[in-house]
């Protein structure tokens, strides 16, 4: 019984289901941060990150 349960949860699909929410939330947070620094149209955000945008080759002004 114990053995069976272990095998059940070690299948990649169920492991994926177990980690899906935190992994996707983290990736979404990453996308929001990159957007905020690299793409935000707010003038102050643009000015603060200006040189970083140019070097990262984000489209800039």
């Amino acid at each position, binding site marked *: 019984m114990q053995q069976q349960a272990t095998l059940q949860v070690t299948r990649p699909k169920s492991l994926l289901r177990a*980690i899906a929410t935190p992994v996707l939330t983290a990736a979404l947070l990453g996308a929001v941060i990159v957007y905020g620094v690299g793409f935000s149209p707010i003038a102050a955000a643009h000015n603060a990150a200006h040189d970083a945008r140019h070097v990262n080759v984000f489209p800039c002004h």
Partner: protein
Amino acid sequence: MLFRRIVLCALLVGALAGLLVSAVQHWQAIPLIAAAEEFEGGAEPSAAVAHDHAQAPGEAHVHDDEAWAPRDGAERHLWTALANVLTAIGFGLLLIPAITVWEAVRGRPLASARSGLLWGAAGWACVFAVPALGLPAEIPGSAAAALAARQAWWLLAAACTAIALGLLAFGRGPLRALALAVVALPFALGAPHPDIGPFAAYGDEVARQLEALAARFAVATAIATAVQWLALGALSGWAVARWVRPVVAARGGAPARFARAQS
């Protein structure tokens, strides 16, 4: 727990990679931006319209004096470094989950600094190499198509490259051929460019100097972003192996083989 662990790893990895790339830029790309800004504003007034179609003529330009901007010198460098660190943290928050999922799907401990280099190279292709083929690195003062159109094209190119690399790496047979079609899509649509050359608004002599600066800037940004992404990839792979893997193993009840490999 897993979310917190990924975020903490991304903060560490992003801080290290962001500071590293700031140091690299400081002696190669930043002086080129400063040199180009010497010429910026020396263009004919007619160029202002071509500069950004999204803005009505006379409307506040992004470089206007009213909006806050860091003062030149230490303050500006500090904000640039902060922006670099934040960008690297954001990229780390995409890379670390990707490596975590890769390992979970394969069911083997694959993450390492070495395999992370490959992930870093893939990230560099997605957000630098392929978008820059359509929209080359811009120095300040160059004319370009409307900002919104360029941003949309950039995002499309980055997303298509990520999908194509995923298909190439993990797909079989016809899926791999599809990868070529996916990466070709943004180029079939065409990157947005203005009708005039980037420095058409300047005199011949200045335009020549700006073109030379732009060429050097393209090389400098390619190197700086490559350094950033290789560092990001290696550090992310290492962080997943060291700190994320044990949490995933505990959460999924992974076999002892998988959990033991962490040490």
